[in-house]
């Protein structure tokens, strides 16, 4: 499956924002209790490649830059620094028809399908609009195309004339998926696409995504804060913390042999039904503000293994094994595995057969 040229290549991507405020802060600002906001370092030198056909899971806590990264690789954001290449070409330099083709070939599916579906339009228009506007289908063929897509994502084509509010949450997410597929993308970015769905509906939508990936040879960037879902769906997992990638490895390897203390903490805190009476919380402290991140390794104030060096020097991503990169000063810059961190059936088998 290794391809000389990655499909997506982000190199040294930097993105700064002026900080967003929440409701409590805006009220406080209005009555003069809070200051105007400053600069957020949402992506701080992020490099990451995605191979054709791969499913990459992007994990991290809120505010670490996952959505920003998704929008950056979709070409929806001007970058502060660095470059995103699609099939080797800098997407910021694409013009006209090439730029349009790139945008159509990359589709994002968001968390809340309701806010991205026009409530006044029927499913027929919602799904059929983009392919019609972009001349991917003749006017007379739209209905046919939409019925086919509805069937493909598990919606009854008889509902083609209904409005979004007449569907359940899971069905709306299927509408969102069908709309994305309507323009024949080869790269899908799922940004917390199943986070708002109930467990039993989540399973249905995950199964759908897995099937579509196979049937349509899609490449997926699967953004989620939920490691248990990411483990199930991804070939490779990338973990971010405060705007930086801290670890990246094939999925089984992350779960069996994570080397970064933050990854290890996340793995330990996944709520699991097979861990009764678990003593919670291996990581102390709060997630620091991306406006004023700690120096050196961003994780050092919360890291149980932090050393002096961690407070002043940023650890760079370093190869710690085949396809396994980690940014941690421990043990010569390769991080440190934590034994029996996450034994599952499949990782144990892989370990026994010498794959890890």
């Amino acid at each position: 499956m290794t391809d000389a040229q990655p499909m997506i290549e982000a190199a040294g991507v930097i993105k700064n924002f002026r900080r967003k405020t929440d409701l409590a802060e805006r009220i406080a600002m209005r009555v003069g209790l809070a200051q105007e906001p400053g600069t957020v370092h949402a992506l701080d030198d992020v490099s990451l490649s995605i191979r054709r056909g791969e499913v990459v899971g992007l994990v991290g806590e809120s505010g670490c830059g996952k959505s920003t990264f998704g929008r950056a690789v979709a070409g929806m954001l001007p970058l502060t620094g660095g470059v995103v290449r699609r099939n080797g070409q800098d997407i910021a330099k694409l013009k006209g028809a090439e730029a349009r083709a790139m945008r159509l070939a990359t589709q994002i599916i968001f968390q809340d399908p309701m806010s991205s579906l026009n409530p006044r339009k029927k499913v027929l228009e919602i799904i059929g609009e983009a392919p019609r506007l972009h001349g991917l289908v003749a006017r007379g063929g739209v209905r046919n195309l939409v019925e086919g897509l509805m069937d493909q994502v598990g919606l009854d084509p008889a509902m083609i004339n209904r409005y979004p509010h007449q569907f359940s949450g899971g069905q709306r997410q299927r509408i969102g998926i069908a709309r994305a597929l309507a323009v024949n993308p080869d790269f899908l970015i799922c940004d917390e696409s199943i986070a708002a769905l109930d467990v039993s509906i989540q399973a249905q939508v995950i199964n759908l995504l897995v099937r579509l990936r196979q049937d349509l040879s899609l490449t997926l960037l699967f953004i989620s804060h939920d490691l248990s879902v990411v483990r199930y769906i991804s070939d490779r997992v990338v973990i971010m913390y405060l705007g930086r990638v801290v670890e990246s490895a094939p999925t089984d390897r992350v779960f069996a042999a994570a080397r970064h203390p933050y990854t290890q903490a996340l793995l330990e805190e996944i709520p699991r039904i097979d861990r009764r009476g678990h003593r919670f919380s291996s990581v102390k402290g709060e997630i620091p503000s991306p406006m004023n991140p700690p120096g050196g390794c961003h994780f050092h104030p919360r890291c149980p293994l932090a050393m002096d060096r961690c407070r002043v020097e940023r650890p760079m991503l370093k190869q710690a094994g085949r396809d396994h990169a980690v940014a941690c000063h421990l043990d010569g810059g390769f991080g440190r595995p934590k034994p029996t961190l996450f034994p599952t059936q499949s990782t144990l088998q892989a370990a026994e057969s010498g794959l890890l």
Partner: protein
Amino acid sequence: MSEHLLEVRGLRTWFETPKGTVKAVDGVDLTLNRGEILGLVGESGSGKSITGFSLLGLVDPPGKVVEGDIRFQGEDLRAASARRQRALRGNRIAMIFQDPMMTLNPVLRIGTQMIETVQAHEKVSKSEARRRARDALGMVGIPHPEERIDAYPHEFSGGMRQRVAIAIALLHKPDLIIADEPTTALDVTIQSQILSEVQSLTRDLGMGLIWISHDLGVVGQLANKVAVMYAGRIVERGAVDDVLDRPRHPYTRGLLDSLPMENDRGQPLRQIPGNAPPPLNRPEGCPFRPRCARASEACLAEPAETGTAARAWRCFHPLEQTGVFA
């Protein structure tokens, strides 16, 4: 009758709407003792929040508790006067919400708000109230409570705001706390810290805690008992180990099976087919029937609770103790 901290029998809370009667809670039985954590789980719309509101007497019209018995330390809460209910709320029984800003006032220093809360129910001096507020903040793991007590809500992160809301709930050392998905919006490391605090506080203070959640993993790790809700009913309840390791109800089994962690990569996830029924259009008999692989003619009638006070389910064809759901 032995006296439980909380005993709920046959609770029904309905909403009269122009389109019909929404039976949000339609047969809920629960028992909770001091020092115990009950996890109330179910998918959205199953009636978890309305159950919590019903226990506190906080259901707004057109909703109404139409039937059932709610006993708090033996006292009949449905028969209690509005004044008595208000006195119990925020004093003996407290509630924590998913959004801490439901509890916090954005333009008040948290200390000011907490002192007011203490003095609303008890005649104590301002300095004594402030001392209690500070202690409560320390108890929920807020660093430097002596300084932080003078901060405004916006000066706290989401996780810290939720801790403050929990501290406010603890101010009167309540006997019972009802927590409605308070960590659902928080990050996993922050959620974990709060669960850890809550677990030891419940034990140390001898409170009863009802933890509402859609996350079976959280409940499995936190609670002693679980109650699984579906379409307004508790379809299965019992000790955590019994319900999660040996579920009897097909819905519980289906939920557990569909968790990504319980599935092998490369195989399709085991999924429950279909959707939960809309509240105004529930099927006759067992509400899980259209999604259930074990359904038979018998399920056209409504299954009653079977089992004991400690372990019960509502199903005509329960799974064998050790059986695997095919």
